[in-house]
C-alpha cells in the first residue's frame, strides 16, 4: 500500500502538451528573462507563474512581442486557495493560435493587483467581477463599481470562507 502511494507521487504532473505549446514552452524563457517567473505545465497548457507587481509589464510584453502575440484575453479568473488568492489569466493569440496561462498569487487580506485593462480592454468586466466576488482590487481600473452584486453588498461571496446566509422558506 505504502509503495503504491509512493509510486503515485513519483508520477510526473500530467503533461499533454501539443506541438504549439511545446514550442511556446521552449520559447518563453528567452522572452520573459527579465522577470522573475517560473514556467510550468498544467495538463495541455503552459503555465507562467509571475510576481503580482510585474503582471502588467509581463502581459504587455507577451502581447507586443511578435513571437508570442497574445492579443486576446480568454478568461480572467480568481481561485481562492484559502491561504492565498490566485489570479489566473488565460490568454490566446489570434494569429499564432496558441494559448498560455499566466498565474499570480496575492494575499487574501488586502489583495491588490495592477489592472490589465490597458493591455486587453476585455479585462474590464472580468476585473469588476473579481472585485465583486473576491475583493481583489485592481489598481488603475477605470471604475470598479459593483457589476454582478448590488451596491453595498457585504462580504465576498466567491471566496470559500464566505458563509452563505441561511435560506428560510416562509
Amino acid at each position, binding site marked *: 500500500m505504502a509503495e503504491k502511494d509512493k509510486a503515485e507521487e513519483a508520477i510526473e*504532473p500530467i503533461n499533454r502538451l501539443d506541438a504549439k505549446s511545446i514550442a511556446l514552452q521552449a520559447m518563453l524563457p528567452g522572452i520573459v528573462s527579465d522577470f522573475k517567473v517560473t514556467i510550468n505545465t498544467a*495538463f495541455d497548457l503552459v503555465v507562467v507563474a509571475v510576481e503580482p507587481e510585474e503582471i502588467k509589464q509581463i502581459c504587455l510584453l507577451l502581447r507586443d512581442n511578435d513571437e508570442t502575440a497574445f492579443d486576446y484575453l*480568454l478568461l480572467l479568473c480568481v481561485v481562492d486557495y484559502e491561504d492565498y488568492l490566485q489570479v489566473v489569466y488565460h490568454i490566446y493569440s*489570434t494569429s499564432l493560435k496558441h494559448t498560455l496561462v499566466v498565474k499570480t498569487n496575492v494575499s487574501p487580506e488586502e489583495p491588490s493587483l495592477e489592472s490589465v485593462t490597458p493591455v486587453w480592454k476585455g479585462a*474590464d468586466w472580468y476585473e469588476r467581477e473579481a472585485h465583486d466576488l473576491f475583493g481583489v482590487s485592481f489598481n488603475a481600473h477605470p471604475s470598479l463599481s*459593483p*457589476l*454582478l452584486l448590488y451596491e453595498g453588498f457585504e462580504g465576498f461571496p*466567491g471566496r470559500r470562507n464566505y458563509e452563505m446566509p441561511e435560506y428560510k422558506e416562509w
Partner: protein
Amino acid sequence: MVDQDINKKLDTVQMMVNMGPQHPSTHGVFRMVLAVDGERIVDVEPHIGYLHRGSEKLCEGEIYVQIVTLFDRLDYLSNLNNEMVFCRAVEKLMELEIPERAEYIRVILCELNRVASHLLFIGTFGLDVGAMTPSMYMFRDREKIQSMFEAVTGARMMHNYIRIGGIKNDVPDDFIHRMKSLIVELKKGLEEADKLLSFNEIFLARTKNIGTMSAKMAIEYGVSGPSLRASGVPIDIRKDHPYSIYDRFDFGIPIGEIGDCWDRYYVRLEEVRQSISIMEQALYQLPDGDTITPTRFLLRPPKGEVYVRGENPRGEIGVYMISDGTDKPYRVKVRPPSFCNLMTIKDLLIDTYVADAVVILGSLDIVLGEVDR
C-alpha cells in the same frame, strides 16, 4: 453621422433614459442608462447582474454529475452546447474515451441546438427592427427542433442529455428519418426568412453600417463567435482547435466584411446553412455502437486543472475547472461568450440613435442567463 458642431452651438439638454431591465428589446434583464441628446446617444452605462445566481459558486458544492444541470441553465438557448463543454472538461481531465456513436449524436444535437439558437436570433432581430413576420416563421421552425429534442432527450429545454462519458440514452429508432425530413423543412424555412428579410431595402438601411465593430476592437474586447467573425476574423474553435469529431466534417466559416449589424445577422444566417451541412454529413456517417462509457456515479477525476474551449452559438465558451481529487470540483469558472460580447456595447452605442441601440444590442445576440451566471 451626426453633425456634432451644430449641437454644440444649440443649447441642448441631455436626457437620461433608463432602458431596461423591463424593456421589450433588452432581451432579458439587461439595463442601460442612456444619456440622449434628442435621439442621439451621448453616453451609455450598462448594468448587469439582475440574474446573478452564483452558478460558479454552486458548482463547488455539487458532485460532477449534478453540475451538468447547472450548465444547462447558463445559456438557456444552447443547453446542449453548454452541457457538452462541461462534460468535455471532465472527460479531458479523466482522459475518458467516448464511444463513436455518442460523439456523433453529440455533434448532431449540438449543431441542431446551434440552428435553433440562430433561428431565434433571426426572428427576434427581425422584431427589433420592426418586422414581425420573420419571428413567426422562425419560431415555427424552432418549434420543430424543440419537438425533435423532446423526442430524443425527453425535454424541450433543460435536457441534461449529454453526460460525462457519453450521452444519456440512444436516439429513437426513427431518428435518422425524422432528422432528414426536419433538415428539409429547416432549409425551406431559412430560405423564406432570407427572402423576406435579408435584402429588404428598409432592413438594409436599418442594419448596414450600423454598430460597426472593427476587427481590432473585437479582438481587444475578446469578442467571439459570429460577432467576431462578422468583423472578418476567421476564428472558429471547431476549425482552429477541433474538438470532439469536428475535424471529420467539411464545413466553412462564414466571415463578414466590416462587422456591422447586417454582417452579424447574415453570418449567423449563413452559419445555419453550414450547421445543416455538418448535420447531414454526421447523419450519413453515424456509426452503431455504445452510447456511453460507464463511469462511477461519484466521479473522482485526478488532481489538476483543465481549460476546455468550445464553440457555442453565441461565441466561444470556456470552462476552467480545478479538481482536487475529491468528488466535487474545487473551482469551476466559465468563460461566458455573451459576457465578452456585451462588453463592447458602450463603444458601439455612443453616437448612434436610440432606434439603433435596440438593433445593435439585438445583433450581439446575448443571453442574460449567461452574462450574469
